[in-house]
């Protein structure tokens, strides 16, 4: 700790930080643009000037940039010094000379960092009367609007997009006061993290296009803390609603999970909530004709099912509460996880490994600290996108290490990058196809899963001879030794695996981590990725072996004639034929869901449930972190939260359901820790979901009836569906939206952090549920995947896409624009030998399914990676080895929108 004096007051600060960070951490207002908590300082904008004095006698002082000056012990500075103030006012005036007169038609208006900083710096009237510099805009795809005139050349966009997120298609162009930030030509921004530009850019140059289509000012949105349901990372979000529809999602800071950034699936994939495909009323379907059901009738259907024996099939996309309520209704022995057998095995193993004291499942923030990473058979960018962004930071630990050795502070971003050039910490990717992380990988192995698992076991045995031995192919032996050595010498090695490679690969990952653990005292970081938002929660609720195949088999045996399916499309999770056959056998199929699926079409009773923004719920992410997601808006149809339908007790609400789940369900002890501590609220008042400037209260519904309805009362949560109550001034764990006086943008979050980029003042990062249990002991035995018997046919692996592989986000129009048709990746040699060209349409094996040929130069001969589209291909019906036959050339379906680094150019 160091002591510095700011405007005559002494503060305890961290000398590793710069002055700007410290001023903000201390809650002081100092304007800035180019500095970002995650990206460090470059001193580009000159807005953060303060006066620094040499010693107590020095009265003159000198202007310094706070973001470029370390907070050394004994520093004396002044923010309020008149010269510093005047300097800042001049800087903002010069930044604004070409700024257009756009605020009323700018989506950033009202949450614009530039507006805030202009006000704060004291620039009110335009004096400059010369011509303004103007720019042409570009089309940047379905997510982002471009309005270059509003740029103040802080360089944050390119520093985020290129330096932080590894993008290659956004750059600073031209020179002097003509600098331009855009692509080399119009086109879709390729990065999976492009949406963060909306928040990173302090002005309205990059704005949210999806939001713009049904725009509302920030102050008009009804908001609440929520959790992304796009994947198992569980990023924290703030969705906003207006006039009954969900308008947008922005980041909600959580120091351990997503920090300041989301992926584009999470940010733009919410619109299924507003979709026409939503199920809005309960129906009883008899011979294809449906009749509506009242709430009481639905309740009686469930009451009947409770007494009669029924099978309950849960869902990894449903909340803990919904799954638990279903389990209570049907009984534990009749509750099945709605996951394929293979995936369920992975999830169970996942939970087992997470409880093993030898391993530690790292949070996203901890992943950033890894200095040697091995990814085993997982396409991280497309399965758990936010983690891919964290991995891009982890490889920079080499640079940070070098900088530390030269005594360069970590926040000196340009210096640290310059010093390291392209030196990265090691990252080795084992994958069936080239991934989007290959550009930062030190080694890549692209081959079939059979080969990859073998390599993985070989790495384990190279680290610890006690591990089961495996013989890699001779050409891989050197790589195996190299990776083993990198992991052994790392300070904080990290192994990543997931269910894509199956349980075999997970066991190999565990062996490597265990081998590493032998040489150290602390647990080894083993990051296991699950597929969906609540895969882990469902895995904890379902008994072993209680997977979908078991449920279907039981139905097929005729043992049970009634089933309840909870928010799950079974056709996505098992072979279509088997699902259809089982459903045919049933006398009564009750489906509770919020959106129409192939399964809801087969329902005898269809019961509408609410989507993620319409109910309060908890989800458990890949780490076993339980997080609470509040209700944002009310659902004005017959839909109710699934657990409310399923629960026969009428006085239930989320809080006591959570308590009950914590008390009764094994492994859920501690879940209640995610509930807010209502005793800390001021005078027991609620927290408003609407801002203090929420407009139109007496007009928005006046067209229906001029007599305003009573404000909706939320009897369940500590938040109010109105402006009533007291917004929390300090506690961001329960906050409508981040806002502080003079700070209207999301950057106001610094007012809620104990230290900038650190924990929130109230902590509250969720509750880690997977408690360590007794050590499991030895290594897993070496159960190799069988090598193919013959060499004809391509070994098939499944490929994932960030836009399309997730069932719900794939219903959002903007995401749809980025989705590709099913494609199958082949090596050039395999394509040539089969007479296939880029873009050809082929039938897969003897099935009726077709896909577009995508020839990729880095595919291994003899293997193929198939992307099934949004369940356009039934992946469970395919053999592990396939042959392809050409059915036609279909350029229209093509691979439009497919972004891969190794598309084979020849002849396309």
């Amino acid at each position, binding site marked *: 700790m160091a002591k510095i004096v700011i405007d005559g007051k002494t503060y305890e600060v961290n000398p590793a930080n710069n002055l700007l960070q410290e001023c903000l951490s201390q809650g002081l207002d100092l304007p800035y643009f180019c500095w970002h908590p995650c990206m460090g300082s470059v001193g580009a904008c000159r807005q953060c000037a303060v006066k620094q004095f040499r010693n107590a006698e020095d009265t003159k002082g000198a202007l310094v940039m706070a973001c470029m000056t370390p907070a050394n012990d004994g520093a004396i500075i002044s923010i309020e010094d008149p010269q510093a103030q005047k300097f800042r006012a001049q800087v903002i005036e010069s930044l604004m000379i070409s700024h*257009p*007169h*756009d*605020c*009323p*038609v700018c989506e950033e*208006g*009202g949450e614009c960092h530039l507006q805030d900083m202009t006000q704060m710096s004291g620039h009110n009237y335009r004096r400059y*009367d*010369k*011509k*303004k*510099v*103007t*720019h*042409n*805009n570009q089309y940047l795809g379905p997510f982002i609007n471009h*309005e270059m*005139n*509003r740029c103040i050349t802080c360089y944050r966009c390119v520093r985020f997009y290129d330096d932080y997120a590894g993008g290659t298609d956004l750059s600073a*162009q*031209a*020179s*002097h006061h*003509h600098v*331009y930030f*855009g692509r080399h030509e119009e086109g879709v921004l390729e990065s999976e993290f492009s949406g963060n530009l909306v928040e990173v850019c302090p002005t309205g140059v990059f704005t949210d296009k999806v939001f*713009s289509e*049904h*725009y*509302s*000012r920030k*102050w*008009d949105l009804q908001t609440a803390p929520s959790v992304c349901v796009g994947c198992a990372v569980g990023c924290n979000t703030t969705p906003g609603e207006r*006039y009954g529809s969900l308008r947008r999602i922005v980041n909600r800071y959580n120091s351990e999970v997503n920090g300041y950034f989301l992926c584009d699936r999470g940010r733009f994939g919410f619109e299924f909530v507003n979709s026409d495909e939503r199920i809005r009323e309960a129906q009883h379907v008899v011979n294809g004709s449906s009749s509506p059901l009242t709430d009481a009738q639905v309740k009686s259907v469930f009451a009947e099912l409770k007494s009669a024996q029924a099978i309950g099939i849960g869902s990894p996309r449903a909340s803990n509460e919904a799954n638990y309520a279903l389990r209570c209704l049907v009984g534990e022995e009749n509750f099945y996880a709605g996951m394929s057998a293979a995936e369920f095995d992975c999830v169970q193993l996942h939970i087992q490994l997470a409880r093993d004291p030898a391993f530690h499942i790292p949070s996203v923030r901890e992943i950033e600290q890894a200095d040697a990473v091995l990814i085993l058979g997982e396409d991280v960018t497309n399965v758990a996108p936010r983690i891919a962004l964290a991995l891009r930071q982890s490889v920079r630990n080499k640079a940070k290490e070098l900088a530390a050795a030269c005594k360069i502070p970590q926040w000196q971003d340009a210096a640290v990058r310059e010093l390291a050039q392209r030196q990265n910490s090691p990252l080795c990717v084992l994958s069936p196809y080239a991934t989007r992380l290959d550009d930062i990988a030190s080694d890549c192995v692209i081959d079939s899963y059979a080969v990859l698992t073998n390599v993985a076991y070989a790495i384990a045995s190279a680290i610890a001879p006690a591990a089961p031995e495996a013989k890699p192919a001779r050409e891989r032996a050197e790589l195996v030794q190299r990776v083993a050595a990198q992991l052994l010498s790392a300070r904080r090695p990290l192994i990543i695996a997931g269910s894509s490679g199956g349980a075999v690969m997970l066991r190999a990952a565990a062996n490597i981590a265990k081998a590493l653990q032998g040489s150290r005292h602390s647990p080894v970081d083993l990051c296991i990725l699950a597929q969906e938002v609540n895969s882990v929660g469902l895995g904890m609720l379902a008994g072993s072996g209680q997977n979908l195949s078991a449920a279907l088999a039981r139905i097929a045996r005729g043992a049970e004639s009634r089933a309840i399916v909870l928010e799950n499309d079974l056709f996505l999770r098992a072979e279509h034929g088997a699902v259809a056959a089982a459903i045919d056998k049933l006398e009564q199929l009750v489906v509770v869901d919020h959106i129409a699926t192939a399964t809801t079409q087969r329902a005898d009773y269809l019961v509408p449930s609410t989507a993620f923004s319409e109910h309060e719920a908890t989800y458990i992410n890949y780490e076993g972190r339980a997080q609470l997601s509040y209700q944002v808006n009310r659902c004005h149809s017959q839909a109710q939260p699934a657990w409310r339908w399923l629960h026969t007790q009428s006085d239930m609400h989320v809080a006591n359901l959570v308590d009950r789940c914590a008390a009764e369900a094994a492994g859920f002890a501690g879940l209640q820790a995610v509930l807010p501590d209502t005793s800390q609220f001021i005078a027991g008042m609620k927290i408003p979901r609407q801002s203090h*400037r*929420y*407009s*139109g*209260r*007496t*007009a*928005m519904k*006046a*067209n229906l*009836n*001029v*007599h305003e309805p009573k404000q909706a009362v939320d009897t369940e949560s500590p938040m109010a569906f109105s402006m009533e109550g007291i917004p929390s001034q300090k506690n961001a764990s329960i906050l409508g939206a981040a806002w502080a006086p003079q700070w209207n943008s999301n950057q106001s979050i610094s007012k809620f952090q104990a230290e900038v980029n650190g924990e929130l003042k109230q902590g509250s990062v969720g509750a880690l549920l997977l408690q360590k249990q007794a050590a499991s002991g030895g290594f897993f035995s070496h159960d190799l995947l069988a090598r193919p018997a013959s060499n004809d046919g391509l070994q098939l692996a499944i490929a994932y896409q960030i836009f399309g592989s997730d069932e719900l986000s794939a219903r959002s129009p903007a995401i749809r624009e980025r989705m590709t048709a099913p494609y199958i990746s082949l090596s050039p040699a395999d394509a040539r030998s089969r007479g296939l060209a880029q873009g050809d349409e082929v039938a897969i094996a003897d099935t009726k399914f077709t896909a577009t040929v995508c020839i990729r130069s880095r595919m291994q001969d003899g293997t193929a990676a198939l992307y099934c589209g949004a369940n356009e291909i039934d992946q469970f019906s395919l053999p592990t080895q396939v042959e392809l036959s050409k059915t036609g050339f279909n350029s229209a379906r093509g691979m439009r929108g497919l972004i891969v680094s190794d598309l084979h150019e020849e002849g396309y």
Partner: protein
Amino acid sequence: MMQKKAIQGKKHATNLVETIMLSLFKDTFTSQVKTLYQVFMHAFVKADTVEYPEEQPYMFPRWRGRIILSRDPDGEERCVACNLCACACPVDCIALQKAETEDGRWYPEFFRINFSRCIMCGFCEEACPTNAIQLTPDFEMAEYIRQDMVWEKEDLLINGTGKYHDYNFYRVAGMAIKGKGKGMAQNEAPPVNVKSLLP
């Protein structure tokens, strides 16, 4: 000693009451007469009121009455749906939704004022950056049915510029709309050629 003082005090008080009563009576009397006189004299003064509704009063242009939405000098809708009026409204009686035309102009998809709540404060007009929303001298807004006090854009939008004749927001703003590209607004240089390094 004490007793004497008390008696003296009492005497004092009686005197005071008498004086006050007397002066009150005098004042009241004179004022009554004066008032009667003035009322009488008013019979000969020109009336300030008019025989409303047979005769219409003169309303000053800046009177804050019925709200309208105006058009710019080119006849296009002025409102850009920026929501500032709604935000400024102390009784929250304005609600609207932004939409965009093919030309790139922002406009309100709907624009609703609940006049049964409006207090004619004029804050919306003051907040409006485009001079779209204006208060007019019309005050005759009584309705038998309260629901009729809810006005939609069709009811609010007039066919002229209202009080402010010349202002056209899009001529000043940097956003391009059909017919006004980048660099064509007031005080704008033509768009930069990013491929050039010339100063």
